[in-house]
């Protein structure tokens, strides 16, 4: 198992965002976390990426307990992520944004970096430029590589953020609503990129997404959170037909003739 979450609880004062959630993600899986608003999905992701330290339970990555590690250590271990709200470095060029993702792979420091031509920093920077260009090609953002990230359109910024996360060379990539606010065409592109990442680049993907069509189409497995608790886990079909999931999304449908039952998957 690549990632194991054991009995994770997260409380903010009296508010319990997560209570006793456990699940496992296998190497090479495309795994989705779904649930209504405020269910604790992003809190879950923050526990995995290290933004939050869970108040109870353990996070294991490749069998190693990483519960107490800071986010920058986790990046080094091979966990990358994107954010729900854009979190690019707005005043940097797209190229520099993606190069920041290479931070832990680069070795030049303040001394060799300042000397640049002496000490190999130039050579190293150019080698990594090459690696970054591969990602740029993959995500089809060649045209904007020199643009300032803050000036780009929303869809492009989402893509640059994905590029930055890929640049880390993560084993596990966490995507927090990669398709939020996109039109159909952009969503299709993004879904394609995620599948390629998973199948060709061999990255394990954990994704939060509200678009059920996409989630059901591309995920291998899904868990459903509601009020901080795991209410279902399994293949997309199994989860769709789970009565508890229907209840969480649609309310109590029993005996209500007008309820749009079966509409979860659109």
């Amino acid at each position, binding site marked *: 198992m690549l990632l194991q979450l054991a009995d994770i609880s997260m409380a903010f004062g009296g508010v319990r965002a997560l209570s006793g959630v456990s699940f496992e993600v296998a190497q090479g899986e495309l795994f989705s976390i779904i649930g209504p608003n405020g269910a604790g999905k992003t809190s879950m992701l923050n526990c995995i990426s290290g933004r939050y330290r869970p108040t109870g339970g353990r996070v294991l990555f490749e069998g190693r307990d990483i519960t107490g590690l800071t986010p920058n250590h986790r*990046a080094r271990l091979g966990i*990358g*992520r994107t954010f729900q709200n854009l979190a690019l470095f707005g*005043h940097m060029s797209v190229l520099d944004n993606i190069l920041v*993702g290479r931070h832990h792979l680069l070795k*030049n420091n*303040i001394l060799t970096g300042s000397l640049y031509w002496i000490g190999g920093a130039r050579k190293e920077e*150019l080698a990594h*430029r090459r690696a970054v260009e591969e990602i740029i090609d993959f995500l089809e953002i060649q045209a904007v590589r020199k643009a300032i990230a803050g000036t780009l359109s929303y869809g492009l910024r989402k893509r640059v953020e994905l590029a930055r996360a890929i640049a880390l060379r993560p084993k596990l990539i966490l995507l927090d609503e990669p398709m939020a606010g996109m039109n159909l065409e952009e969503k299709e592109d993004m879904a394609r990129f995620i599948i390629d990442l998973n199948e060709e680049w061999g990255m394990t993907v954990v994704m939060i997404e509200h678009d059920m069509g996409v989630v059901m189409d591309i995920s291998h497995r899904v868990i459903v959170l509601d009020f901080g608790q795991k209410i279902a886990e399994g293949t997309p079909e199994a989860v769709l037909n789970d009565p508890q999931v229907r209840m969480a999304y649609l309310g109590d449908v029993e005996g209500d003739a007008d309820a749009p039952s079966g509409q979860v998957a659109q």
Partner: protein
Amino acid sequence: MSSVGMRPCGDYKTDYGRDQTIFETTTARNFVIAGIVLACLMPLVADRYVLSLMIQIGYLGIAALGLNILVGFTGQISIGHAAFFGFGAFTSAYLNNHFAIPVFFCIPLAGLATAVVGFAFGLPAARIKGLYLAIATLAAQYILEDFFARSYWFTGGPSGSIAQPFTLFGFSFDSDRSYFYVVLAYTIVAYLLATNLMRSRDGRALVAVRDHYLSAEMMGINLTKYRTLSFAIAAFLAGIGGALYAHYLSVVSSEGFNLLLSVQFLAMVIIGGLGSILGSLLGTVFMVLLPEAMDAGTRALSGTWIDTALGLKDNVVFLRDMAIGAVIIGFLIFEPDGLAHRWRQIKAYWKLYPFSY
């Protein structure tokens, strides 16, 4: 950062190395080289006064560059930069006087010693931000100022300490004409190294910390390390600038390194352009030359009908100080992105003429 590239049509790069040069075009590079050559020729033609202004621009410019890396690139704040500048000045003089280390080595050593002090005073940055950090650095300013005034063994107390002239292979750089080259060399090296730093790993990490520290941390950047590192770099350059100042004036007294100078350093980087290497220098030029320009203006005013009508007489000096303040305020209103931004716009205008975009 302007969206307009300066590259002419048909200039295609065939490898990444040629795409990642400091200057976007060879013309830009040649202009800078010509500028340096021109500066080298200055001592032959300029008089002492002009040279002293240029030396001032040099050592203040190095310190301003340090502050810009801290404030402009890393997004931290410091209002104790003058104290680091002073610490560098005293350290260099002290090392030379007490350990007989040649001035040639004292200047970089003073920079390193100041970097250590800057690192120590930068430690609060690991935990606090914004206005709170500003107050913490204000404490650094006052602690160091007090230290300068009281530690006779280090600074010579109120009488100050003597700094020997810069010597190299027996040649003493004790005139403005010769010392100009020392400052010029240091300025060029400092700006070149800073430019390189900003296009390599650690420089990008600093900017990442400024732009979005949460995602910077997710990208594997140790926030504490880079925040304190930024203070150390800023203090290092302030120390170098201070040391150059000490060996220029040959006497260092503790009064000059006060809060006012710290604020002036801040004014330099804000007027020049936060987050711009070139802006640090432009801002320094502006702040050094503005009093001169205003002085010339007010001197031309004295004796004219305006002078007699307002009855200014000796107060013309105060008019100068007020004018400096007014120009700075006007600048912040009409040019909030600094001189570096204006310079980019001029270049874009030149390239695009007669179209506007």
